[in-house]
């Protein structure tokens, strides 16, 4: 048996047993964050907080939700919305949270792209981040099935049909995923399982991994400068006003976290404003009709955050469309390897890459807007051009970054 002294405080008692002081140092007081960053670096913790809110509101929704094709629609639209005390609140928080989490994910991603925070040791941060993006997409899709309205049903039909692989006709695979010829009870039950257990577990694991990948490379900064963390940490720990001013870093907790909390405060004002006054943007009116396998809604479109990739599928014939869609889903994973430039610097210092960045952002916005419009006339054409531009941009990326001058 190991030797234990009688502890003089709870902290010491815990430290003897699980090394809590070491843990606090590694994860908080000696996890160094550069001073030279801006509010965009708070998006990561904003995401973590939003995930927490989704989890809590989800737990309360779960208390009355009924995963049966006969009862699901009413358990949400009648029981939770009108009978359960404050049931509407959890539902609106959950809907608004699911939508905003993607807005923040996109901001977080494009911040990373702008500052080059995905290379020279930060590749795994990017890859684990993309893994989170994919898992959140699966989580959002499976959750969208649960109210069993018209959009749930038909989105479920169309998206699972993607797995037939066009001319490959893997109809067996589609039926396997559904557990039936069409989305029905087996389908609803398994997507319920995915949404409330398997995906959240995987997301929590991926968040831990994402944080782990940040610890050694540390977060980037506004100039992409390579900081001497040891020297800066020494200056901070010296503790004088002078040395702390000279140090280029601050501890994650409590110093940086307090800045994060400020940004979160502003964010949550917006968040709850939407929850109370504008929740309808996160609730599709078509989904307030119960699922009907014999009637398709006039327009089927996904939630706004999937529109850009949906629009890449739409303008092409089936097979090329599927290939384009599949590539669009995974192409962002390859960013650290397609960017051949040795520079870690903000885009505005990187010449052609600066233009690439804004073109990519605008192209994805155009795709998003076109995805919502009916596929007719001029909209089809703009959609097609934007989809092709997306691929041209990715093909040109290795070339323009290869030609980039070393800073």
């Amino acid at each position, binding site marked *: 048996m190991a030797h234990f002294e009688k502890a003089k405080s709870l902290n010491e008692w815990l430290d003897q047993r699980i090394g809590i002081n070491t843990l606090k140092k590694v994860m908080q007081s000696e996890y160094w964050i550069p001073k030279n960053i801006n509010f965009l670096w708070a998006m990561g913790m904003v995401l973590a907080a939003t995930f927490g809110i989704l989890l809590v509101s989800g737990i309360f929704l779960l208390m009355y939700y009924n995963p049966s094709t006969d009862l699901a629609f009413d358990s949400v639209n009648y029981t939770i919305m009108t009978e359960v005390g404050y049931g509407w609140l959890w539902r609106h928080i959950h809907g608004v949270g699911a939508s905003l989490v993607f807005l923040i994910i996109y901001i977080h991603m494009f911040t990373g792209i702008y500052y080059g925070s995905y290379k020279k040791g930060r590749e795994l941060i990017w890859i684990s981040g993309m893994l989170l993006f994919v898992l959140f997409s699966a989580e959002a899709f499976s959750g969208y099935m649960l109210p069993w309205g018209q959009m749930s049903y038909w989105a479920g039909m169309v998206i699972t049909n993607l797995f037939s692989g066009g*001319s490959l006709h893997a109809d067996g695979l589609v039926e396997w995923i559904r557990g039936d010829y069409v989305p029905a009870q087996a389908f609803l039950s*398994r997507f319920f399982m995915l949404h409330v257990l398997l995906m959240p577990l995987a997301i929590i694991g991926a968040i831990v991994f994402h944080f782990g990948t940040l610890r050694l490379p540390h977060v980037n900064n506004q100039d992409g400068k390579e900081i001497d963390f040891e020297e800066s940490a020494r200056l901070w720990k010296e503790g004088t006003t002078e040395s702390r001013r000279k140090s280029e870093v601050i501890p994650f907790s409590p110093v940086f976290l307090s800045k994060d909390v400020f940004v979160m405060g502003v964010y949550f004002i917006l968040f709850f404003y939407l929850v109370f006054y504008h929740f309808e943007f996160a609730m599709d009116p078509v989904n307030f009709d119960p699922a009907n396998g014999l009637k*398709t809604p006039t327009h089927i479109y996904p939630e706004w955050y999937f529109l850009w990739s949906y629009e890449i599928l739409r303008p092409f014939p089936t097979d090329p469309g599927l290939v384009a869609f599949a590539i669009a889903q995974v192409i962002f994973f390859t960013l650290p390897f397609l960017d051949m430039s040795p520079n870690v610097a903000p885009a505005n210092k990187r010449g052609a890459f600066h233009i690439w960045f804004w073109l990519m952002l605008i192209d994805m916005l155009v795709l998003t807007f076109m995805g919502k419009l009916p596929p007719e006339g001029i909209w089809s054409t703009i959609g097609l051009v934007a989809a092709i531009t997306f691929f041209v941009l990715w093909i040109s990326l290795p070339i323009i970054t290869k030609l980039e001058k070393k800073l």
Partner: protein
Amino acid sequence: MSSRRDFMGMALGGFTALGGIGALMAMKKTWDPLPSVKAAGFTTIDLKDAQENVLVTEKWRGKPIFVLKQSKEMVEKAKKSDELKRLINIGDEYYMVAVGLCTHLGCIPGYDSSKQGFLCACHGGQYDGTAMVTKAPPPRGLDIPPFKIDGTKLVLGEEGPEYKKMLADGTTMKV
């Protein structure tokens, strides 16, 4: 095999892998459609009361089934475009019978009786009165469900000789 320790490691690893494969197989099977789902598969529809150029929607295996009795004019058109083979012939009448799910991604196309054609609102695909595709993205006409002719009735789910012929000459594919 250099030592007993290696042997034990490999034996343990082998049995673990075996158990893992078994577990994966069980998981795959658990996701399979249930036998009761697979077995429920036969629907009889009567074509006697169908009216020319009026779309009737039936249901088979949870999927919509389109039935469209062809007018003389539509039959002529089908003959010209060599699509008569897509129609089911009973006595003097011709019927289009097809699974009402777009072959692109499975939305239900809507029928416009004045244009005698279908439009899929999802991605703009179009079909003519025999449910042959006339505008992409759908890669082919609507699929024809397995059927057996029984007087003026059709048994969906059973493969009669007329259906087998359609399969054989590539008019439709298996659904």
